[in-house]
């Protein structure tokens, strides 16, 4: 019950570095909660530093404000004060935050700020922040200022080499620069599953794009069907997390019986397969602000039918998702805007309009837009970090003209070398006139990778090619094998992703 941030419970976590090491040895990361309320306990360095260096929010008489939160009597750091932000950021240094490693990241919770005994469970409006601003004026910014400082701390601890990961409950315009957000303490019911879609669409359109909801619902206990459907929906939203109140029942994917373990595993694997696509979407998001999860009207602004739709959404412009969010559903009705669409998992072809399809436990209705090329990785791994060297499978979904376009962004997945040294690859895929081409946009990139093209899956091909010819600089001209009709699968082109290549269908 200590709840002293930047410290470890010496009984429960006596060897934190070893514990973190056990996780990261398998390519995983760890996150701890660090909140803005500070336990008022003499001898706790953070509290004493804050008192001595005048880092706390004060009341109108200049007295340090005291409220009640997880640790009991607490005071709140005034993140509007640059002095406080610098102090806070400095505490993330590995030699200051004892027992931490570079694989330990941070979740800033309760940062509205939450005050259990305050008006509207927050800070009184006449508390005074840096520069004489009353809390009423800056309340909505408080969480942002904390996250900004936490982000800075993570940057500094690696000498600005590594990208931070911060999760925050409070949000404000601009938060997307620092971290991810989730929709807060939801409940284990179908209504809240449904609501996760418009909530994240709203945030995405507002620019806060790394959004997700607690899978299964934070409060109460989901049954197997609800948690399965929630996984299936959430795995097509940007931020994915199963999280619950401490007093709920265990709800790990494997506690609902073999059948549901297998079904949830199937859904999770689909997420991992699409990570190269998500990563590319977030690259575009960083460059242009375009949200990875978006409402249909974002890409189809002329189609008024799409305007009120909030039970389905797009992932980038190439995938349309209508997750099953009804209990006991045996079918799902959805709307597809203009063009040809292919069921991403059984390749059935659809055209613009309303459709109803049967669904079983394993069905996630996802459709690839004709005219798009999606990069995926089909190899199964324990963690995304272990997929780094795995080969790509491209899904080429042809439009009416037999054409398609797509792109792929790759970097080391963790550092800022992509910014500082241009260590990344941006690749454009194009299919036109029976030729599929890959072109590296940033030629002479210093980024090196052994990744290669394992498979090209073509949807909507109207003929069966008699021969396939591939070529790249290092492989020269090669004869390739293909099989099937729809999909038509080109076997093991073997091109390095870092080189231009092309495949001709005859």
């Amino acid at each position, binding site marked *: 019950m200590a709840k002293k941030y930047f410290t470890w419970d010496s009984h429960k976590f006596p060897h934190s570095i070893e514990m973190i090491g056990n996780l990261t040895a398998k390519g995983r990361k760890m996150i701890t909660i660090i909140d803005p309320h500070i336990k008022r306990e003499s001898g706790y360095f953070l509290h004493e530093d804050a008192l001595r260096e005048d880092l706390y929010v004060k009341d109108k008489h200049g007295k340090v404000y005291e409220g009640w939160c997880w640790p009991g009597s607490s005071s709140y750091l005034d993140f509007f004060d640059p002095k406080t932000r610098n102090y806070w950021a400095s505490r993330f240094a590995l030699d200051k935050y004892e027992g931490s490693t570079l694989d330990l990241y941070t979740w800033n919770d309760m940062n509205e700020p939450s005050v259990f005994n305050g008006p509207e469970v927050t800070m009184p409006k006449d508390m005074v922040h840096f520069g004489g601003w009353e809390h009423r004026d800056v309340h909505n910014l408080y969480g942002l200022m904390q996250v900004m400082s936490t982000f800075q701390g993570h940057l500094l601890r690696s000498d600005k080499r590594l990208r931070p990961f911060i999760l925050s409950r409070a949000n404000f315009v601009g938060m997307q620069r620092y971290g991810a957000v989730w929709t807060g303490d939801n409940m284990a019911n179908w209504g809240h599953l449904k609501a996760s879609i418009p909530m994240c669409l709203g945030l995405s359109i507002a620019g806060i794009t790394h959004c997700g909801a607690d899978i299964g619902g934070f409060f109460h206990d989901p049954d197997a069907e609800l948690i399965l459907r929630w996984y299936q929906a959430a795995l097509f939203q940007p931020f994915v997390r199963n999280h619950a109140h401490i007093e709920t029942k265990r709800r790990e994917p494997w506690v609902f019986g073999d059948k549901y373990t297998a079904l949830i595993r199937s859904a999770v694997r689909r997420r991992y397969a699409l990570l190269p696509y998500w990563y590319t979407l977030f690259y575009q998001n960083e460059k242009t602000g375009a949200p990875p999860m978006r409402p249909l009207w974002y890409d189809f602004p002329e189609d008024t039918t799409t305007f009120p739709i909030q039970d389905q959404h797009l992932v980038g412009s190439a995938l349309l998702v209508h997750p099953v969010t009804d209990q006991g559903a045996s079918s799902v009705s959805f709307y597809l805007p203009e063009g040809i669409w292919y069921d991403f998992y059984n390749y059935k072809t659809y055209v613009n309009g309303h459709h109803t399809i049967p669904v079983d436990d394993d069905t996630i209705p996802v459709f690839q837009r004709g005219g798009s090329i999606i990069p995926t990785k089909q190899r199964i791994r*324990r963690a995304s970090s272990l997929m780094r060297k795995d*080969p790509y499978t491209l899904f080429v979904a042809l439009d009416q003209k037999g054409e398609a376009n797509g792109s792929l962004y790759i970097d080391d997945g963790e550092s800022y070398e992509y910014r500082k040294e241009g260590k990344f690859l941006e690749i454009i895929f194009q299919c036109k006139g029976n030729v599929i081409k890959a072109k590296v946009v940033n030629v002479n990139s210093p980024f090196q990778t052994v990744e290669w093209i394992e498979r090209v899956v073509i949807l909507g091909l109207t003929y069966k090619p008699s021969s396939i010819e591939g070529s790249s600089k290092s492989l020269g001209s090669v004869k390739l094998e293909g099989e099937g009709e729809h999909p038509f699968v080109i076997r093991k082109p073997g091109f390095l992703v870092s080189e231009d290549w092309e495949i001709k269908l005859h």
Partner: protein
Amino acid sequence: MAGSQFRQVNTGIWHSLSLIGIFAVLFNRFSISAKDLTPRGVPLSRAALYDAEKDFACLDGTKLIPFSLVNDDYCDCADGSDEPGTSACPNGRFFCLNAGHKSIYIVSSRVNDGICDCCDGSEEFDFACPNTCDEMGRAAREEAERAVRLAKEGFQKRLEMSQVGKTYRQSKTEERSRLETDRQHAEVIKDEKQMLRDEAETPEKAALEEYRRLEDERKQKDDQEEKQRSEEEAEDMFRLLDSNDDGKITVSEIQVRQTFDRNKDGIVSDEEASFFLNLEAEMSKEDFLKSGWLLAKPYFLMEKGMFSPPEPEHMMPEPEHTVPETVHTEPTEPNSQEAEYHDFEDDEAEDLGDPSEKPLEHKELSDDEQDELDTPKEEPAAEEQKPKYDEQTMELIGIADKARSEFHEADKVFRDISNKLQELNDVLNVDFGDDERFTPLHGQCFDFEDREYVYTLCPFKDANQRGKNGGGVVNLGKWGSWSGPEDNKYLQMLYDRGQSCWNGPARSARIFIKCGIENRVTAVSEPSRCEYHFDFISPSACQNPDSLVHPHDEL
């Protein structure tokens, strides 16, 4: 996961394996093209399925592919059999020889992912994993030997526990049949005594009936007189208060009398006065006799110093207390003895009943209550000083008292035996495991202490938790049932119906039992809220070591 087929193949060729191990490592690293070797990730026992001279048939028989496509890092077979040595197939598996330790299959997703999974490191061929097989093999062999030793010792103890259990059940079963005979005998005696008591009570009852009739008559007469006296008194009072003789009492007539100054301020206010007139301005004689008198009377009595109300607001004294002489001044009420007697009869009828019909109810009575029921109530001492009945009646009562007392004695004996029998049946109905091997745990308790709590498991009774820094004992569940898997239910106990959690379910505890040479709780956790998990070791869970695989067979 390790194929039993392979284990059998390797049994007995232990010494040659390490050589093959080195060979396989060399192959993994350097000689993928060597066609005469087993492909990477395939055990020697299955080498025949991968013949480099022929096309490869997917092991599910669905496809025939050129052998060059085996382990070419592209998945061609639906069953994953063409890629035993790469990560290309989602459902593939990779064989680690692990010479010096146990050979295993790993899922193909772990091949070449940068993490060393096989102790011989054979599944990572982009970098060199350290070979830890010798070290791990040694540790595993030691562990297996330890397990066998433990099983041996434990199983010996289990047999002893089982013997204790069997003896216990036998002696308890014998005791039960003895008690059943005793119980039959006691029941006969009890029924006999009951009959004798009933016979003795009949003449006693008839004699007392006569006394009761006379008493009732006297009481009725007293009541009549009392009522009349009260009415007369009320009428006298009405006349006194109705100073203008108009047949009504008014506020002003009340106000002239200091008696009614309720708050003692020297003035009888309008409010004070109207209180006595039921808040009306006036009151008829009829109403006064009905209710007004009851309000006014205490004040008259107070004035006379004869009555002091227990509470200021108590304005309704019992009518029979009007006359001072009738207030409890006499040592005994005329009918008190008979009232006592009735109480006794009622007790017997309602609480005792037929003991053989309600043994459980009696079991739950406290000792004091039991004594009270077992012993007939003593006649009040006052009774002896002041005999009220004639000699003949007294004699009848004496005979009946004796019969009652004898019956109660016989009944107590019968009930004691019944209770013992019930307890015995409760024990004999518990499933102490096949061979009675868990019996010695019955009646024992085992503590486990962590930082905050002391947990106590009393097998076949309950599980508890007690805070070390105060707070009471919390029941985590009462003995419920064996709850292990169907083929071995004695691996797990369920204690349920424990104390309810605030806003939550009733607590429950599952006890996971493993073989050990002593009986001990080794860990307690609460994986879900209010659902506790105890690890318990006991010799009674040890399997016959002869049924365990010898450690060397595993390698």
